[in-house]
């Protein structure tokens, strides 16, 4: 949204915003906690409130066409896009393209935690959506793998809904999330944090029953004698975000294999001229305020690209 508005403010009058969900806002819609907009608006907002400020601005600009429930199926190097929506396969050619496709969560399977595959294991963002959007309670006794922000936020969220969060397990020697989250989510609620530990096995036939935990050394190898078990019915996985750049990869953009981010010489640019990436898809930001500024920059660059041509 910020990129579209910035492009408009730079003088572009023909803008299409394609969104796969049935509403605008993206991941912000499920982030009911506050802390958004401290830098950008000098205000303390929840995720939906922050999104709403941009939605209102956007809706006031008729030259920005919004296409919801629209799913891009093909992107070519010449910036021809094909997208699906109810009843139609549309084709458009863009002079300039901005990808604001955000991230997906790293899963338990990707980090190869051994054990069974029962119900009750959730990427933290999925648990967040179940609670905040669907009004459903995923479980009662929780262990959180990873001290990323989403995991810390959800540790607090679960506690506020009456669950018992038994532990947050972090493999490194310091937490991954913002310090303010460690204080406001863990310390304020007496949730135990285990640094230099990892979950080595998940137990449970149909539903999670417990996790086996072990201490690890600097080389992330198990330290003998430090194993213990925690009974639980829910495991949240919060071990990092992966930028969703498979579409631009399809178009031939060079991607850094390690981070899944586009290789670029200049911020927001990619190896295909006229194709820009912004927000978390460009680089995983820890505050939406920075993702927003980054997107405005991309919007302006995309606009400048057209004018220069």
């Amino acid at each position, binding site marked *: 949204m910020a990129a579209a508005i910035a492009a408009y403010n730079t003088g572009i009058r023909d803008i299409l915003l394609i969104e*796969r969900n049935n509403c605008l806002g993206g991941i912000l819609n499920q982030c009911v906690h506050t802390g958004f907009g401290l830098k950008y608006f000098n205000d303390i907002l929840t995720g939906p409130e922050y999104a709403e400020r941009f939605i209102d601005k956007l809706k006031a600009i008729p030259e920005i066409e919004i296409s919801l*429930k629209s*799913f891009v*199926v*093909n992107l070519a190097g010449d910036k021809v896009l*094909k997208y*699906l*929506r*109810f*009843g*139609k*396969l549309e084709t458009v050619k863009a002079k300039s393209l901005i990808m604001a496709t955000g991230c*997906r*969560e790293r*899963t338990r*399977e*990707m980090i*190869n935690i*051994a*054990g*069974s*595959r*029962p*119900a009750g294991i959730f*990427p933290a*963002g*999925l648990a967040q*959506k*179940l*609670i905040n*959007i*669907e*009004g*459903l*309670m*995923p*479980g*009662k006794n929780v262990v959180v793998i990873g001290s990323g922000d989403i995991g810390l936020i959800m540790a607090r969220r679960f506690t506020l*809904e*009456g669950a018992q969060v038994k532990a947050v397990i972090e493999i490194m020697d310091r937490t991954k999330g913002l310090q303010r989250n460690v204080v406001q989510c863990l310390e304020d609620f007496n949730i135990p944090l285990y640094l230099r530990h990892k979950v*080595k*096995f*998940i*137990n449970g*036939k*149909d*539903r999670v029953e417990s996790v086996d935990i072990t201490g690890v050394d600097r080389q992330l190898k198990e330290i003998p004698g430090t194993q213990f078990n925690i009974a639980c*019915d829910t495991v949240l996985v919060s071990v990092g975000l*992966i930028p969703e750049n*498979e579409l631009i*990869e399809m178009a031939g953009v060079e991607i850094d294999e390690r981070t899944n981010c586009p290789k670029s010489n200049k911020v927001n640019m990619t190896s295909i001229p006229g194709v820009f990436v912004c927000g978390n898809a460009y680089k995983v930001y820890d505050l939406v305020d920075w993702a927003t500024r980054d997107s405005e920059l991309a919007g302006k660059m995309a606009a400048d690209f057209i004018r220069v041509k």
Partner: protein
Amino acid sequence: MKMYDVIIIGGGVVGSAIAHELSRYKLEIALLEKETELAFGVSKSNSGIIHPGTQNPPGSLKGKLCVRGNRLTRKIALELGIDFKEVGELIVAFSESDMEHLKQIKSDAEKLGVRGLKIVNKAWLTKHEPNLSDKVVSALYAPTAGIISPYRFVYDLSENAANNGVKIFTDTEVKNIKTAGKNNFELITQNSVFKTSYVVNAAGLYADEVSAMIGIDDFKISPRKGEEYILDKKLEHISNHLIFPLPEEHTKGILIIKTADGNPMVGPTAKEQEDKEGHSTSDEGIEEVFSAVKKMMPKIDKKHVITSFAGLRPIAGKDFIIRHEDKVPGFVNVAGIQSPGLTAAPAIAEMVARILKDNGLKLKKKPHFKKHRRKTTHLFALPLKKLEKLIKIDPEYGDIVCRCEMVSVKEIRDAIKRGAKTLDGVKFRTRAQAGRCHGGFCTCRIMKILSKELNIDITTVTKRGRGSEIVIGELR
């Protein structure tokens, strides 16, 4: 109470293939499956390979039925509208002595009727399998190896069987069997009793326990675990054939598998265990798999893993046990169906039909057997032009639920109409939740669709049946 002609215990690939075969005849048939959906036992944890027939003991049922099954599966796949791809297989050799072993495998297989085998050299391999390690000196090429989706095979076989009159009962576990005279069985389940003249025991891991219910306990099912690791679809073309190492005594080894879904898969391990319910992966397992795989294709790495699972092979000795139990007339055991069970399934079904006929069951062909089944639509398998036409006819194909695998709401609703009741059932039929984010984004919506289509409370939606509910309730 209704008297069936045949009841099949077990709704995996073997049970479904038997149901499909018997549904050609004028018979009253029921299929009983203890899990919430078919294929939820051994059949879902499968490599999906239709073997050419190599590496089976000469004179074995495995050998004979695998070769016949390889041919039958192609025919059935066409009739049922399921994708079968003949990708071919390479058994690789790293040394001169390995090559002797290859030649032995080739001649043994040719005696069993396997066609087209040839030993290929390094030049051939460099051209046709460029990512293979340069330490591989030669390979045995078996062109008739193919791949199929094992669970979609089960669903398509059973759906066609049901379409031809077979009654399928899930969440129905046989707890006891009473015999009230010759060819007169009473199958007691948790909430009903079934009467039948003939019983076919295709109960996979529990075939020995079912057989013991009628007093035949001369075999035991010993589970052997196999861990498999599925890789990112980006690596779909890292190999062009199925890649096998030289076989060991009781396992074909750790393979590089092309799957019908596109994602490569590596594994399986082979480890004996007592527990018939223990389906966990292990740290040792992943190390074993990747160290073996890297020898054959060094580019493949642990970092490419998007999911993993462990299956249990139902081993009962060295060969399949497919026999009529003369001491209990009317009872047919179909046990110990490990590899090449998937390949052999249609041939096993033929053999079981013959055994039943030889033991008194009248097989009268149905004049109107519905041989064909309309192919299931998968958006991800359609070229864009076809997709465009499809959406104009049915706009719901344009409403995408699973983004990673491009699965529409229409496909999911169709899967539920065809029997999916759980998240795993939807996943196996449509591939929704099987991609990179593994359900991270689409689980909520799929739960809502299941709740609406099945008219059940969303809090009762499960991963794979009772006990695996996703949530514990609503927020208070």
